[in-house]
């Protein structure tokens, strides 16, 4: 357990203590107790930058389940550190923001911060674990905390719906990822990511490669809301806005991106990887931006925009994999895609985080997020408006904000793919830049819509629940910090390039680096009149045109019938799964005890019969059998006759007496087989039993003639005969096979020596197996208590009804 481990689990530890604070100290907002932790974590992680920027890594491990190869191995490299900084940094800002967003006297703050800390710890665990199983555990914990946070206002039906949806989809993906992890373990014999990366050539040759890739990508795509799994993200917007800013735009949804980046060194050389990651990414980019335009809820716009931006990063990671097919890093034009992916990851966290906070402020101060009710807030909320402009223009890819730079690089990466003559990319590859460009146009449109529909136009105070005014200072700090970062990164991008981007790239594309080498990342503001610049200019011109004519072509969105939308398909699927499983359960769990007994007996017959048959266990060996005496024949006949007669007995009395007869015959058998203790016990017990039966029989109803149908009786008869036959077969086989020596000799030898008794059976019961007898007495005690309770206790039924 090192300091690094402590850092990872510290949020979880704090989550245990925080309810005490929220319960006992009510005057102070619980958030203030939480805030120091992410700040400390952020500065702690900052101290690693000097290590990772020189391609160093920090590795700490302690054994958890070493026999299974599962160790809590924590590793800091460029990629992990970048995410850790995002998680702790944005985390600190979000906690600060939430202090002003959530009122301390109205909300259950204890719950909120416990969930939030749970998430923070889990997410740190995901990005800093080197062991895949440990990472999987943390991964699922992020899904669970996300579920809890979306359902935070659990009294709202939509919250519960969104929470369930996100849980079902992301956990489904998580399970698929677990499958992928196991497949990788089969291929390489290790759960350690570093070791698997070292064996990537084995993985790439293996027949299980494609299934493993599919499993991992299912995990990544569901988590990062890639098409067609993106449907959970818009519904997740029911969570409080700080949560949306933190989990559903800056960190958790990027876990899928992280997974793809992390596994790139293993899988990326496969063409399937390039096509799937790039293809799904670019389709998501397009679909997300296209859908965002039609939304009227501010958070919905941001949700779809997040979907689309995640697609953008994903597609860049896919396209960046092309670089692996060329040696060296000098003049390797495809690495620019990976650079853009990492750069945009940071940029997206800044501008989207600030936009979410801006929307949160608007919602908080006006009481609505409906774009149709808003307008003209510019004069009332000047600071918020400025922040919105910064965030949205950066998202739209306008200079001088950081979004412009990464968008340009994105175009460069997408255009460069045309130069690749592998995997039929030179023909179909054209789709990448085309879709990218179209999606950027839509991105531009919804960014403008977000800002100008809210802050300009006519002010409509009558539709608002509150009288809007500028947000309190504390609420503005976080978005202002993020907004300034947007500008700083836009103007001085190279403060990131050496410290964060280059080390992260080294983790994604390690095979391109020779030892001691680093990626030399330089981000230029001005590229000269390149195709990318013209693409951006085209985006702006067409975007403005389309934005202004939006009302005219907006109707196109209604062309797709609602029945065919993915959400409806999800809803109907869920419904039919529920009703289907209910029907199935009702079909076999029908409430009749006989049915269950039939299942049990049928299973008994089948499994034992099958085993006897396949293992060739059925043998009859007559060498060791004992002689058959006269008395035994008589007793056997007696017991068989008595047993069969019970079946046909018409009256209760007859059957009880016959049962008694069977019991006494058993006692006689014990006599014949030289078991005196058994015979005595059996005689006593049988007498008491028969007395009890006769006592009760007086109260129980007469046998009715069982007017059951033939099939019913036939099934019963078949099952009974089957059970009888199987038991006979087992008895015969058991007698004929002696696989090992009996342990009984021990008791025979030691009865007197160890326990000074002469009756072996008694000594076994009270000495050697005394606990057995003790518990037997317990069973009797419980039974007698039960009987007593049943007889004495009369449940007084309610008078009503």
């Amino acid at each position: 357990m090192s300091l690094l481990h402590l850092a990872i689990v510290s949020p979880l530890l704090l989550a245990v203590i925080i309810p005490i604070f929220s319960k006992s100290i009510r005057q102070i907002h619980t958030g203030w107790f939480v805030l120091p932790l992410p700040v400390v974590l952020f500065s702690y992680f900052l101290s690693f930058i000097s290590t990772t920027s020189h391609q160093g890594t920090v590795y700490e491990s302690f054994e958890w389940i070493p026999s299974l190869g599962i160790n809590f191995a924590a590793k800091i490299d460029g990629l992990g550190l970048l995410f850790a900084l995002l998680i702790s940094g944005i985390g600190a800002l979000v906690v600060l923001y939430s202090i002003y967003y959530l009122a301390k006297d109205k909300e259950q703050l204890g719950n909120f911060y416990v969930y939030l800390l749970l998430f923070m710890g889990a997410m740190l665990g995901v990005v800093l674990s080197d062991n895949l199983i440990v990472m999987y555990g943390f991964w699922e914990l992020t899904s669970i905390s996300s579920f809890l946070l979306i359902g935070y206002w659990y009294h709202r039906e939509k919250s519960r719906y969104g929470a369930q949806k996100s849980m079902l989809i992301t956990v489904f993906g998580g399970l698929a990822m677990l499958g992928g992890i196991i497949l990788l373990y089969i291929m390489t014999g290790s759960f350690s990511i570093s070791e698997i990366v070292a064996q990537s050539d084995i993985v790439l040759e293996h027949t299980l490669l494609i299934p493993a890739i599919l499993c991992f990508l299912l995990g990544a795509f569901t988590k990062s809301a890639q098409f067609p799994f993106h449907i959970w993200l818009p519904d997740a917007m029911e969570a409080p806005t700080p949560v949306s800013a933190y989990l559903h735009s800056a960190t958790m949804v990027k876990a899928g991106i992280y997974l793809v980046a992390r596994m790139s060194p293993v899988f990326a050389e496969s063409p399937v990887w390039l096509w799937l990651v790039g293809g799904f990414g670019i389709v998501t980019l397009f679909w997300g931006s296209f859908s965002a335009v039609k939304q009227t809820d501010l958070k919905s716009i941001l949700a779809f925009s997040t979907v689309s931006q995640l697609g953008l990063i994903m597609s860049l990671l896919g396209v960046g994999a092309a670089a692996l097919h060329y040696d060296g890093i000098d003049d390797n034009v495809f690495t620019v895609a990976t650079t853009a992916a990492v750069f945009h990851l940071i940029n997206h966290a800044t501008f989207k985080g600030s936009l979410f906070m801006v929307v949160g402020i608007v919602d908080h101060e006006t009481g609505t997020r409906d774009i149709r009710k808003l307008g003209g807030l510019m004069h009332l909320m000047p600071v918020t408006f400025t922040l919105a402009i910064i965030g949205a223009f950066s998202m739209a890819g306008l200079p001088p904000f950081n979004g412009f730079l990464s968008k340009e690089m994105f175009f460069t990466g997408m255009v460069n793919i045309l130069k690749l003559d592998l995997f039929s990319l030179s023909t179909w590859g054209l789709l990448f830049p085309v879709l990218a460009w179209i999606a950027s146009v839509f991105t531009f449109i919804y960014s403008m819509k977000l800002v100008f529909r809210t802050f300009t136009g006519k002010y409509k105070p009558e539709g608002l629940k509150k009288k809007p005014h500028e947000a309190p200072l504390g609420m503005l700090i976080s978005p202002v910090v993020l907004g300034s970062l947007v500008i700083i990164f836009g103007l001085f991008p190279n403060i990131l390039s050496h410290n964060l981007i280059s080390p992260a790239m080294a983790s994604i594309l390690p095979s391109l680096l020779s030892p001691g080498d680093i990626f030399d990342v330089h981000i230029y503001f001005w590229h000269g009149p390149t195709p990318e610049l013209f693409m951006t200019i085209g985006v702006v011109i067409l975007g403005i045109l389309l934005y202004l004519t939006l009302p005219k072509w907006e109707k196109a969105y209604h062309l797709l019938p609602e029945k065919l939308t993915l959400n409806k398909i999800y809803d109907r699927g869920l419904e039919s799964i529920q009703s289907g499983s209910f029907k199935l359960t009702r079909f076999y769990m029908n409430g009749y005890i006989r049915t269950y007994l039939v299942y049990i007996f049928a299973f008994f017959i089948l499994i034992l019969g099958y085993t006897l048959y396949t293992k060739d266990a059925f043998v009859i060996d007559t060498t060791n059998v004992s002689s058959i005496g006269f008395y035994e024949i008589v007793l056997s006949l007696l017991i068989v006759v008595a047993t069969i007669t019970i079946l046909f007995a018409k009256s209760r009395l007859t059957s009880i007496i016959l049962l008694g007869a069977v019991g006494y015959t058993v006692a006689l058998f014990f006599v014949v087989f030289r078991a005196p203790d058994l015979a005595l016990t059996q005689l006593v017990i049988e007498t008491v039993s028969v007395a009890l039966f006769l006592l009760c029989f007086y109260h129980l109803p007469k046998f009715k003639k069982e007017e059951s149908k033939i099939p019913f009786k036939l099934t019963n008869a078949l099952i009974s005969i089957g059970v009888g036959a199987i038991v006979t077969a087992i008895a015969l086989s058991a007698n004929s096979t002696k696989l090992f020596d009996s342990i009984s000799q021990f008791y025979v030898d030691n009865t007197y020596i160890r326990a000074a008794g002469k009756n072996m059976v008694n000594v076994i019961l009270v000495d050697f197996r005394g606990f057995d007898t003790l518990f037997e007495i317990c069973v009797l005690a419980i039974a007698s208590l039960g009987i007593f309770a049943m007889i004495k206790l009369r449940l007084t039924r309610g008078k009503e009804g």
Partner: protein
Amino acid sequence: MEIVMAFVVGIIFMAATYLMLSKSLLRIIIGTGLLSHGTHLLVLTMGGLKNGAAPLLGEHAAQYNDPLPQALILTAIVIAFGVTSFFLVLAYRAYQELGTDNMDRLRGTKINE
């Protein structure tokens, strides 16, 4: 003798199963009683029959019958008695409260469709 006993036990099991599958509660209880008888004989048979004297050291025999199955059966007899009596009283009370001993009408789930 073991082979004969195997068939006897088989028949007892068969009858017990048949009774347990019927609809009347009393028959089911009789079935369980029968089942425990069958099991006791089965366990005894599996240990081997008539291998020697009764397992009492006072017999001073060279060979004794296997004491272990007997000890197990002794426990089982007592437990079977406990269970049977519990079951009987349960049936009696169920009949008193619900007015039927027909298993078809004593259904666990409340599905009335």
